[in-house]
C-alpha cells in the first residue's frame, strides 16, 4: 500500500464507447503499489483499451483515473508518462530508424536528464536486457523477441517509473527471451518496488508472475483474485468457453 493507504492506481467507473460499441463498461480497479497485477480475458474484452485509457491515448467517456493521488484522466500521454506511468505495446512500437541506444535515450531525455547521464543509464539497461552487441544497430533490424526486450528496458529509462503496463509482453516470444522478461519484471518489482500490470493470454505465466489477477470480459471486470480463485469462478469459465 502507499504510505497513506491509498492505492497507486485507482480507477472508478470507467466507461469508454466507440460509436455504438461500449468497449469498457463501468470498470473499477485498484492496484496497490508494489503489486504485479495480471489482466486477462478473452479476445476483444477490452484489455488493450484499458491500457490506452490509463496512459491517455484514448479519452475516457466517464469515470476517473487516479495515479498516486493525482487525477490523470484527460491528461496528455506524455504528461502521464512524466508522472511515472510507462507501457509497452502489443505490436512492437519502437523507433525503427533510430539505433537501440537512441531508442533508449528518448524517455530519459524527456525527463530532463542530461545526455551523458542518459547515455550511461541506457548502456547499463541495454546490458541488462542482453542487447549490448546491438547497441548501435537500427532498431528495425531487431528480431521479434529483441523488439520486446527493447520495449521493456526502454521503459526503465524513466527514472520516475512507478507503474508499468505491459501489453502481451510474451506473445510470440522465444522461450528463453520470455525467461529474461519474467526475471526482469520480478527483479524490478522486488528491488525497485515497481508496480506492474501485465496483460497476457498465457495463463501459466500469469499465475507464476502475478499476485492478483483481474478478469475482463466484454468490457467488464467479472472476477478478481488469485489464479486459483479466478480459475474456479464459474463466470470466468463461462466467459472463456462461452465467448
Amino acid at each position, binding site marked *: 500500500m502507499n504510505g497513506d493507504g491509498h492505492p497507486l492506481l485507482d480507477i472508478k467507473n470507467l466507461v469508454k464507447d466507440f460509436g455504438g460499441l461500449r468497449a469498457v463498461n463501468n470498470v473499477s480497479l485498484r492496484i496497490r503499489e508494489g503489486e504485479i497485477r495480471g489482466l486477462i480475458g478473452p479476445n476483444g474484452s477490452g484489455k488493450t483499451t484499458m491500457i490506452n485509457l490509463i496512459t491517455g491515448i484514448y479519452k475516457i467517456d466517464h469515470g476517473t483515473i487516479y495515479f498516486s493521488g493525482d487525477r490523470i484522466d484527460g491528461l496528455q*500521454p506524455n504528461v502521464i508518462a*512524466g508522472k511515472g506511468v510507462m507501457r509497452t505495446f502489443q505490436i512492437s*512500437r519502437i523507433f525503427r530508424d*533510430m539505433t537501440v541506444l537512441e531508442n533508449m535515450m*528518448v524517455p530519459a*531525455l524527456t525527463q530532463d536528464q542530461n545526455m551523458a547521464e542518459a547515455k550511461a543509464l541506457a548502456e547499463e539497461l541495454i546490458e541488462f536486457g542482453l542487447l549490448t552487441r546491438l547497441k548501435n*544497430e537500427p532498431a528495425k*533490424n531487431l*528480431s521479434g523477441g529483441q523488439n520486446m526486450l527493447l520495449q521493456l528496458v526502454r521503459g526503465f529509462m524513466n527514472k520516475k517509473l512507478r507503474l508499468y503496463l505491459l501489453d502481451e509482453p510474451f506473445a510470440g516470444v522465444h522461450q528463453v527471451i520470455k*525467461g529474461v522478461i519474467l526475471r526482469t519484471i520480478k527483479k524490478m518489482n522486488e528491488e525497485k518496488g515497481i508496480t506492474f500490470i501485465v496483460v497476457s493470454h498465457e495463463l501459466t505465466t500469469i499465475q507464476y508472475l502475478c499476485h492478483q489477477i483481474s478478469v475482463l470480459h466484454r468490457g467488464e471486470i467479472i472476477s478478481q483474485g488469485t489464479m486459483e480463485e479466478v480459475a474456479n469462478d464459474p463466470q470466468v469459465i463461462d466467459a472463456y468457453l462461452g465467448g
Partner: protein
Amino acid sequence: MLKGLGLILLLSIAVILPFFLKDYWVYSLTITLYYVVMAVAWNLLGGYTGQFSLSHHTFAVIGSYTSALLIIKTGIPLWMGMVSSWMFNVLISVLLGILCLRMRGIYLALTTWAFAEIVKTYIRMDFEFTGGDRGLKAPLFFKTMDPVPYYYLFLALAVITIIVIAVIMRSRIGYYLRAIRNDEVAAQAMGVNTVRWKVFAFMAASVIASVAGTFYGHFTGLISPVSGEFYEMALIIIFVVIGGMRSQSGPVVGAVSVRFLAEVLKKWPEVRMVILAALVILIMRFFNGGLMEFLRQGYQRVRQRKGAQPVSAYQETDKTNAMLEKK
C-alpha cells in the same frame, strides 16, 4: 577530424569562388545557396520530423511580400521591414502548425497544399495591393546590382542554417523530432511532448524559409507570385530527395548538384524536368537515402574490400540468441 578538415576546405573554396567566376555564375550560385537554405530547412520539418509540408515555399513568398509591401507602403527602413516580416511569419507558422497538429500524413500534405494555393491565388487576385502577376519591385538590400555581396550574404545564411539545423538535430530536440517521425504514439508514450515539438519544427522551418525569402526578394529586386507556385515546392522536394532525406548533407548536396544539372540543361527545360522527375522516382524506389545513401553504401563496399568487416545485424542476433541459450 577528417570531416572537419573537409568542411573547412569546402568553405574556403566557396569563399574564394567569386573571384574566379563571371557575374552570371556568381548570381546563379547565389540562387543555389538560397535553395540550400530552403532545402536544409524543409528537411528538418519534412525529413526528420516527418511532417510532409507542401507550403514551405509559401513562407518564403509571404516573407518577401510582407517585407517589400511594408517598406513600400509605409516607408519604414529596410531592416525594419524585414524583421517585421519575420515576426509576422513566426505568428503565421505557429498558427498553421497548431492547425495541422491533429493531422496525419495525407491530410497535412493537403492542408499545407491548400494554404500554399490560397496565398498564391490571393497575391495574384489582389493585384492592386500586391502588383499581382506583374510582380512587385522590391528595394535592394545592398544598393547595387553586383551579385558578389549577395553571394557572401547567402553563403553566410546557408552556413548558419546548416549549423543551426545540425545543432538542433544533435540535441535532445533531435531525438524528439526523430521519435515523432518514427512513431508519434510511441513518442508520446515515452514522454515526448509531440504537440510542442511538432509546432516547433513547423515554426523553425517556416521562419528560416521566410528569412531566406525576404533576403531573396531584396536580392532579385522583383517579387512575383510565380515563387508561390507548386513548382517551387516540388523543386525543394527534388533537392532533398535526390540529395538524401534525413541526412545533414543530403539537402546541400542535392540542391547544389541538381541546380548544376539544371544550369547545364538550361536550354531544354522540359527535358530537365523529365530527367529530374525520373531521378526522384528511381531514387525513391531503389535508393531511398538519395545520393548520400548511394555514396555511403559505395564507401562501405570499398571498406569491405579493404578488409574491414561490417557488422552484420544477423550475426549479432545469432550471438544474442546464443547468449540467451546459455543462460
